[in-house]
């Protein structure tokens, strides 16, 4: 565990030293206004995605579970699209993350309503899939009706995820939400361990199964919704991180929460550093999108895992 935190620390430091101008210690204003918010946001968003993935895989006893499964990211995107749609973002800059946060919050409420009172793993997954489909449909609707001809390009760009030009304001908006979500999720360890024996057995061990799933969904909504509000759509981190860590930390779900938090932070900070290095070392006009990079990095990992799983 210590080496993992050391890796996170080293990556944070590296992230502060890399920018559009190249390597080196930047002047105070750049460090404080540009590099620091961006670095901390990458770490926070990644931590939220990592721990969300670990909790969902544990709660649903499914190694394929991903925070995107619950549709919260889609709802955040919908909120952002609505902010774009009415041009609110042009008038009032924080309208975008605030709209996305509101979308994530509404998504969470709808998810709870969809999944009903007798919550179980399958009902949560089905409710999430329904919510995802609804959010995608409404985003598509908003895009086709968008009055602003540039909206389509801007929204598409935002949906690919990224952390450039984020400010301390973005950090102030997202950090409390993500931290609250992680705090909820990190407390579920023992319950997730018990759930690995199935929902019935967990109930006989005194674990309130429906309440645990509800807390997991709310925690994921906060941790992922807060992240999506400032970073857009970033996939694969929540799915891949627990898989990377299981061979090292064992498969007990509760034992993976803190490592996945740190691992998610490390991976997203590393991906963001790579995004900034892109134009420096390659003939690129601009940074590759962060969501594109995490998917590019995540897919080979998944292929490797798939080959190892076997029949």
């Amino acid at each position: 565990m210590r080496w993992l935190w050391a890796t996170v620390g080293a990556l944070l430091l590296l992230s502060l030293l890399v920018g559009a101008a190249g390597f080196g210690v930047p002047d105070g204003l750049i460090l404080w206004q540009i590099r620091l918010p961006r670095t901390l946001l990458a770490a926070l968003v990644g931590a939220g995605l990592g721990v969300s993935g670990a909790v969902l895989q544990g709660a649903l006893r499914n190694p394929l579970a991903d925070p995107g499964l619950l549709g919260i990211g889609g709802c955040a995107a919908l909120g952002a699209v609505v902010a774009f749609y009415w041009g609110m973002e042009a008038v009032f800059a924080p309208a975008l993350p605030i709209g996305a946060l509101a979308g994530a919050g509404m998504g969470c409420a709808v998810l709870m309503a969809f999944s009903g009172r007798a919550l179980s793993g399958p009902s949560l997954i089905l409710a999430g899939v329904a919510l995802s489909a609804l959010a995608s449909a409404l985003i598509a609707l908003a895009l086709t009706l968008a009055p602003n001809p540039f909206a389509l390009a801007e929204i598409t760009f935002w949906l690919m995820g990224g952390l450039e030009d984020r400010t301390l304001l973005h950090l102030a908006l997202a950090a409390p939400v993500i931290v609250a979500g992680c705090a909820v999720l990190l407390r579920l360890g023992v319950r997730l361990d018990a759930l690995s024996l199935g929902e019935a057995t967990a109930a006989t061990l005194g674990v309130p199964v429906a309440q645990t799933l509800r807390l997991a969904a709310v925690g994921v909504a906060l941790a992922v919704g807060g992240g999506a509000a400032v970073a857009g759509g970033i996939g694969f981190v929540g799915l891949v991180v627990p898989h990377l860590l299981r061979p090292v930390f064992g498969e007990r779900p509760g034992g993976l929460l803190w490592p996945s938090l740190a691992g998610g932070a490390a991976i997203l900070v590393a991906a963001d550093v790579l995004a900034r290095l892109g134009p420096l070392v390659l003939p690129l006009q601009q940074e590759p999108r962060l969501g594109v990079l995490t998917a590019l990095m995540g897919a080979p990992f998944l292929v490797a895992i798939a080959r190892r799983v076997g029949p």
Partner: protein
Amino acid sequence: MIGVADFSASLGGRQVLHGVSFAAEAGAFVAICGPNGAGKTTLLRGLAGLLPGGRATPRRVAYVEQGARCAWGMTVRQVATLGRVPHGDRDGAAVDRALAACGVAALADRRIDRISGGQARRAMLARALATEAEVLLLDEPVADLDPRAAHEVMALLAGLALRGGCVVAVVHQVELALRYASRMVVMAEGRILADGVPREVLDVAASCFGMAVGLAERLLPPTDLTS
């Protein structure tokens, strides 16, 4: 110690238990026998407080479901330690005792998905024992065990009952129930047909399982035949 009175239950609109009354005391090893669909599992789930309206009593009753398995490749010790969840601790001594009682202490650090099915079943039993509950409810604890392992597990359960525990187990192998259980309950179609000392309810059990009575007699352990 544990029981239900005039207990009915429905699954998906079909009534599977019709006013069943059942109670088990400390020191009893009750084998519940009967054909598939008799309502054995539903009765056990009702005793465990898992049916609608029921309430689990985690420290008092430990339950191992049919075909119990762990979703992740946790170690045998980690699985057994889950038995301490109702107590909110990780009492290593209680876990060690449970692992030793089930004969899986040597496997404590092996992954439960990398040991044999019989060993994994005993690890699940160790998880239930680690709770140190008064009542053990086990759904087919010896299914898919080889004969020797099945005898070992049944002997272990009989020993627990002798030391004052209360064990209620669904058992399909009538010969094992005859040899080890102190009491046999025969169920069919959601009702209890017979309940008593295994030898005495044997005929009912035999007819339920479709065996000729004479054949069932031969299943009696030799000591019982001479008495």
